[in-house]
């Protein structure tokens, strides 16, 4: 058993899953917004990073780690809601490129403002879990208490989001608003409010990903979500932008692929693994693995 756990195969699986759950969260946050408003939020990573700065730097003022996490998520949600109301709502019904351009610009603004306030130096956020790997029979198992926490937290968030969408009144209204906004309005659903809540939820999920990333070995710096955003975006495209399950699966696929490319090929080409998967999937299933095929009347 111990030799199995310390085998390079298992270690690569652990490493891939740890990274994959972060990609899954980012992909899930993108899918929530895509489903409700058909906007690709290119500033998603930067918004989450900014919320994490606001929340997690309160550790310097003596606030407990967990309260900082809660604060980061709350700030992220408010930021998401405000972004929808101020920047996105005026663009509904306009060409699809408009919100993309606005959000790419907003990404630059957020990173510049963050650098202006907190500088570009990386900060360490001390998580209340050890990052030292376990050992089994004298050999390393690439799992630490922090990685286990990271995986449990990500899975818990995904399950909460799934339960919210599937079993609550709010979830039903969010789904209806996304699927058939006019019908939802005719049934008394306040669709505009649902769109704002969709953005808030999405930004909250994104903030959790950013908090996990910042608490890891690379720390927190203004561009720390850029690479994760790209991988999360690829994961969402691989899984299918219309599918929350696809987002989660896509994140795990990309995380594992990157890890195996890193281990068996070269660390410098690891991000290429995700791109290869993306191209291969889109050639076979252009709408992603988990999206139902779309029929069009001609």
């Amino acid at each position: 058993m111990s030799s199995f756990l310390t085998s390079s195969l298992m270690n690569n699986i652990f490493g891939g899953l740890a990274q994959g759950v972060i990609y899954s969260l980012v992909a899930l946050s993108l899918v929530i917004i895509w489903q409700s408003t058909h906007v690709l939020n290119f500033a998603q990573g930067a918004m989450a990073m900014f919320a994490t700065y606001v929340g997690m730097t309160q550790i310097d003022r003596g606030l407990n780690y967990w309260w900082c996490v809660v604060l980061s998520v709350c700030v992220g949600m408010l930021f998401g809601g405000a972004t929808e109301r101020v920047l996105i709502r005026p663009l509904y019904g306009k060409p699809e490129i408009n919100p993309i351009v606005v959000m790419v610009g907003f990404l630059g603004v957020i990173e510049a403002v963050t650098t202006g306030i907190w500088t570009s130096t990386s900060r360490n956020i001390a998580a209340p879990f050890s990052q030292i790997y376990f050992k089994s029979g004298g050999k390393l198992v690439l799992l630490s208490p922090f990685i286990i926490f990271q995986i449990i937290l990500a899975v818990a968030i995904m399950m909460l989001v799934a339960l919210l969408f599937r079993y609550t009144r709010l979830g039903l209204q969010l789904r209806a608003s996304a699927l058939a906004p006019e019908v939802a309005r005719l049934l008394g659903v306040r669709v505009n409010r649902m769109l704002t809540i969709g953005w808030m939820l999405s930004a909250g999920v994104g903030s959790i990903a950013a908090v996990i990333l910042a608490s890891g070995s690379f720390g927190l710096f203004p561009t720390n979500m850029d690479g994760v955003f790209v991988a999360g975006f690829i994961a969402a495209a691989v899984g299918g932008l219309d599918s929350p399950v696809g987002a989660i699966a896509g994140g795990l696929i990309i995380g594992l692929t990157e890890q195996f490319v890193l281990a068996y090929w070269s660390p410098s080409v690891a991000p290429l693994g995700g791109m290869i998967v993306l191209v291969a999937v889109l050639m076979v299933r252009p709408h992603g693995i988990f999206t139902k095929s779309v029929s069009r009347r001609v």
Partner: protein
Amino acid sequence: MIRVDDLSVNYGAVRALRNVNLEATPGKVTAVLGANGAGKTTLLRAISGLVTPHSGAIFLGGEPLARVATENISRMGVAHVPEGRGVIEELTVEENLRLGALASKVNIAEGLEAQYAQFPVLGDRRRKYCGTLSGGERQMLAMARALIAQPKVLLLDEPSLGLAPQVTAELMKTILSLCESKSLTVILVEQNAKGALRISHDAVVLHLGKVVASGSAAEIAADEDLRRYYLGLVEE
């Protein structure tokens, strides 16, 4: 009661409705008849707040509806079953029904039970996704979803579209019995003038956005010119 006063709606340069007047009262079915492009659907969409009138007014029991948001009009007791039924295919039958009840004050469990009693086939298929339902079942679901919130006004846009004649006849009977038993104000938009006139109390005939005739359904049905030139009910 719904009252429409001098209502005009424009789509850009196109005048979809011109000075339309209509009064629909509780416990009665008011048919709105006319050919394609007459403005029937636009009239219902204006009542529901989905299109903004150019001029004129709409009242629900004395309360003005023009420029009230669609969701608020729905919450005031106006249920609109749109053309094509508006059933959300990606949700189950029960989720569609729950959605209809969410914005109202009705007890959802009791509402579901009442609708399953009225439309037993929906109860049998409550866990099925709506994409799997037949046209008739979808129409029943759309009606049940509108009725679960216990509305005062029911707007029905072409409910017979795509249904077999026998199913249509059953549906029309159901509409009439619901209207009378629940004292609903029903506005029924139909191209199937014959079927609609059979169950309606009053009727309005629209042509190119204007009211060309209004009165009791019996009067409209008896007018040979209306039957021939506007309703396509020519019997050789």
